[in-house]
């Protein structure tokens, strides 16, 4: 690691105004320290923001607010979340390990960086790590890479499980900007597609802090599921994951939500398939059709053609699981 100065943030205004380009905020540290050890992130100064942000989950009329410092494991134990937003807990429990979930913050989870092996190997070109150096994955080892929404500049996938559930539930990210004003970014606009600037993962304004995450009240709590397909059964990142949620009246689908991880540079919503399911009976035939509808749009790379069928299967399974869990 490169030497750095360490300070504990004591006031929000001071923290925000003192942030330089070479300053990094640290919350759980589970992603940042790893990247610093590998010389991918090299801040001159670390600012500990753990006592600066809320670690509370608050319910209000329109939904719930998860403070940026709420630990990932706390989300999985919260009674309100388990009753009204269980998809969030299911997604988090499918990721990382109990130790990491105890450390990781909600805000840090949203900002964790890709697990593309070339991004982690500083001896190889990577546009995300070193803009303009080229993408080693696009023509290289791309078994884990994206199958939709990628560009020639970057084919990396977004690694979070929590974010897939947040995308499905139409969450929003409340950010505190450097002028201390709060603004809200819809979840679908929070993460970016790589385009020609893959170094930028999100639309979080420079020097801003994630304040909290808002999840609107919904009727998906009875019928939701998270399916994650990976190289080993636990403690591994997704090859493909699916968050599915159905709002049923009898057996008729009022609303459907389908989002995927492991397929794109951001949590990916399958809007067309959601639209198709609306008003249909919840049954295997319709689930199969919806899955095929999503999979028809994907364009796998040289080594990840398998992800297409995997995605289709994961969507069908997740929709089926919505009926049994």
């Amino acid at each position, binding site marked *: 690691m490169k030497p750095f100065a360490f300070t504990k943030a004591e006031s929000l205004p001071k923290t925000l105004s003192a942030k330089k380009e070479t300053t990094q905020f640290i919350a759980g540290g589970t992603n940042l320290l790893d990247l610093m050890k590998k010389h991918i992130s090299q801040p001159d100064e670390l600012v500990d923001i753990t006592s600066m942000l809320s670690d509370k989950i608050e319910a209000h009329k329109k939904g719930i607010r998860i403070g940026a410092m709420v630990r990932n494991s706390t989300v999985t134990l919260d009674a309100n979340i388990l009753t009204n937003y269980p998809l969030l807990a299911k997604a988090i429990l499918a990721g990382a390990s*109990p130790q990491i979930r105890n450390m990781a913050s909600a805000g840090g989870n949203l900002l964790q960086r890709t697990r593309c092996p070339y991004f982690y190997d500083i001896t190889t070109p990577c546009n995300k790590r070193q803009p303009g150096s080229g993408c080693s994955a696009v023509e290289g080892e791309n078994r884990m890479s994206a199958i939709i929404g990628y560009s020639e500049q970057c084919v990396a996938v977004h690694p979070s499980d929590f974010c897939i559930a947040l995308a499905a539930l139409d969450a929003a990210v409340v950010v505190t900007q450097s002028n201390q004003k709060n603004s809200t970014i819809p979840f679908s606009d929070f993460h970016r597609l790589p385009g020609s600037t893959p170094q930028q993962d999100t639309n979080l304004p420079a020097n801003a802090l994630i304040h909290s995450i808002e999840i609107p009240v919904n009727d998906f709590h009875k019928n939701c599921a998270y399916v994650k397909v990976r190289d080993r*059964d636990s403690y591994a990142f997704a090859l493909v994951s699916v968050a599915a949620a159905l709002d049923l009246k009898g057996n008729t689908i009022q609303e459907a939500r389908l989002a995927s991880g492991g397929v794109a540079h951001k949590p990916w919503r399958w809007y067309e398939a959601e639209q198709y399911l609306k008003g249909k009976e919840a049954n295997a035939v319709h689930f199969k059709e919806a899955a095929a509808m999503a999979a028809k749009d994907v364009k796998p790379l040289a080594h990840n053609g398998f992800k297409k069928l995997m995605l289709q299967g994961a969507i069908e399974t997740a929709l089926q699981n919505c009926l049994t869990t």
Partner: protein
Amino acid sequence: MKTEHLYSRRFFLKTAAAFTALAALPSTVKAFYQEVKNFIVPAKQTLPLVVTINKKEYQLSADTRTTLLDLLRENLQLTGTKKGCDHGQCGACTVHVDGERVLSCLTLAAMLPGKKVTTIEGLAVGDKLHPMQQAFIECDGFQCGYCTPGQIMSAVACVKEGHTRSVAEIKEFMSGNLCRCGAYNGIVESIQKVAR
């Protein structure tokens, strides 16, 4: 081999000569050299720390980069906690901070003041082993023993959290601790024994 030796010897003599010459230079040049050196090798920064480990308070000064794992092993000679991967991928370094299991390799020592750390050395009471330590011995919960301190710290937390209702649940909630020897069955048995 031989030429390499010669080369490094010559290199050593040359550099040594350069440093001797440097000592004779006026101070402005020395200051300039320091600046260049600081630019190439940034100076390490240290921080005074008060940390509580196994109920004992330590007052130390540490490099800001020190992880809890390195603090334990290198600064305090508490070598029970093991370094497997140093990147959060194996669980060998698992300790408890304020009673919760965490990875010491991804914890900065600088963020510990005010928190209580428990390591494998802090589990036994005098000569009396913690029930989980005893269970690991009785159930063959280890072979080489390298992952064991991390497994035991994780297992104690797993029982406390109540994630012991089935073998599948134990395996899922112990998945953050890898064992290259494959002592998994004994580990699961140890946990079942303590949970009972």
